[in-house]
């Protein structure tokens, strides 16, 4: 049996409301809230970044897995906001956990699906017997250009998964990836903010890849939507996961436990991974979970997990996702948010 042996989440405490952003740009807040099904998003403090969140999420995963970090053979961090352009996030994470020096480390990048990329590779290495334990983290502190639609949703968070063969919490039954070259959203080197193709990011991008990956994995596993207790889709806004769920034949109640975006925002590489940690938090032994990520550029990774009895033993060993989402929230004004997110041009 191969699967998840530990999982952990981390969400910063700061939030900013849609109204606060809309006010500054003279936009109509109610229509954004309705159109995006979004109320507020998380904001990282200036002393938080992809690396710091990855470390804390990974520590939570280790608390649930109960293993010696020295035995982790692979550490992967997937993000589109790695703190360095050249110098891995993974090495800092591996040092902070105490997994160095006998460990393979790599940083992954694929817009919002960099987290599930790492998960696919870590899982596969464990399956192949190349490493005893593999760690994959999806974490981001992505930026949206000021005044752009993406500014309302670009948020920060991290989710970490440890894979192994013993004491499995959620068994991996199937994986499937669907990839094409589709330039729906991108950021060129040296640019501070990304750009996107507007409505082109919908049908030919998000919907095509998620539906293809979901149908692909279900065909491979000979399963249908009603066979699953829960499904998690990438959450760029509140509406898309429900719409793609409807297209595929899933019900709202299967989606809701992992649907965090209305209060969290789009945590990019952390998006579907955090949906998975939230779902694991409330799952029961025997539950079937489907997760389908989406990364612009474009591609989707799909996984099927079956929850084991062990979930009951480890669930409470680290903070739960919704606890982190709701705990001690601090609401920011736009000025402070802009200062934290370095959108204000300062003197040299």
């Amino acid at each position, binding site marked *: 049996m191969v699967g998840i042996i530990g999982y952990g989440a981390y969400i910063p*405490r700061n939030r900013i409301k849609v109204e606060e952003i809309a006010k500054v740009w003279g936009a109509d807040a109610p229509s954004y809230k309705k159109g995006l099904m979004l109320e507020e998003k998380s904001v990282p*403090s*200036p*002393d*938080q*970044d992809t*690396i*710091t969140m990855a*470390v*804390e999420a990974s*520590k939570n995963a280790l608390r649930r897995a109960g293993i010696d970090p020295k035995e982790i053979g692979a550490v992967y961090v997937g993000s589109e906001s790695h*703190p*360095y352009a050249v110098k891995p996030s993974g090495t*800092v994470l591996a*040092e*902070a956990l*105490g997994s160095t020096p006998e460990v393979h480390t790599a940083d992954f990048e694929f817009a919002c699906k960099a987290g599930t990329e790492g998960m696919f590779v870590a899982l596969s290495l464990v399956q192949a017997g190349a490493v005893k334990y593999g760690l994959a983290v999806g974490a981001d502190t992505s930026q949206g250009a000021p005044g752009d639609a993406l500014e309302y949703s670009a948020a920060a968070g991290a989710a970490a998964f440890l894979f192994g063969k013993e004491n499995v919490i959620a068994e991996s039954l199937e994986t499937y990836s669907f990839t094409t070259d589709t330039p729906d959203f991108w950021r060129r080197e040296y640019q501070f903010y990304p750009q996107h193709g507007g409505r082109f990011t919908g049908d030919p991008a998000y919907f095509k890849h998620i539906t293809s990956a979901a149908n692909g994995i279900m065909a491979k596993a000979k399963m249908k939507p009603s066979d699953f207790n829960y499904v998690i889709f990438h959450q760029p806004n509140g509406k898309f996961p429900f719409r793609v769920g409807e297209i595929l034949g899933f019900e709202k109640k299967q989606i809701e436990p992992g649907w965090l975006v209305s209060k969290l925002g789009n945590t990019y590489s952390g998006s579907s991974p955090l949906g998975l940690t939230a779902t694991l938090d409330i799952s029961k032994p025997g539950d079937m979970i489907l997760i389908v990520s989406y990364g612009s550029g474009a591609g989707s990774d799909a996984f099927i997990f079956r929850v084991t009895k062990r979930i009951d033993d480890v669930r409470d060993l680290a903070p739960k996702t919704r606890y982190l989402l709701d705990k*001690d929230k*601090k609401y920011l004004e736009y000025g402070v948010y802009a200062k934290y997110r370095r959108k204000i041009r*300062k003197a040299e």
Partner: protein
Amino acid sequence: MPTPSRYWREIPQRYRLEAGKCKKCGFICFPPRLVCPNCGAREFEPTKLADKGKIVTYTIIRVPPKQFVDQAPYAIGIAELDDGVKLTAQIVDCEFENLKIGMRVKIEFRKISEEGEAGVIYYGYKFVPE
């Protein structure tokens, strides 16, 4: 501010809070040392600091040194960890008016500072309310 080598040398302490426990008297040195300040002995066994404790004193820095100009005002304090070791670090995720001597805190991995836009990023430990 530290050069890469000065920063890198202290990574086991900054990232993992690795310390040394005196084999003779049990005193915990953070960072590890060659000579025990308590009994003068020279043999230590590796240990790690506890990751929770209570604040014994604190302040709020409003006039920062040059590397921390962007961060001011920020809270900094000394916590006595549950293993008895006292540690100095910033206190974050806590409104200034809620800071209290005696409050429980735990350690979180955070960014400490960076050498401008192009330099090395310095990571380390900070205190957050438990």
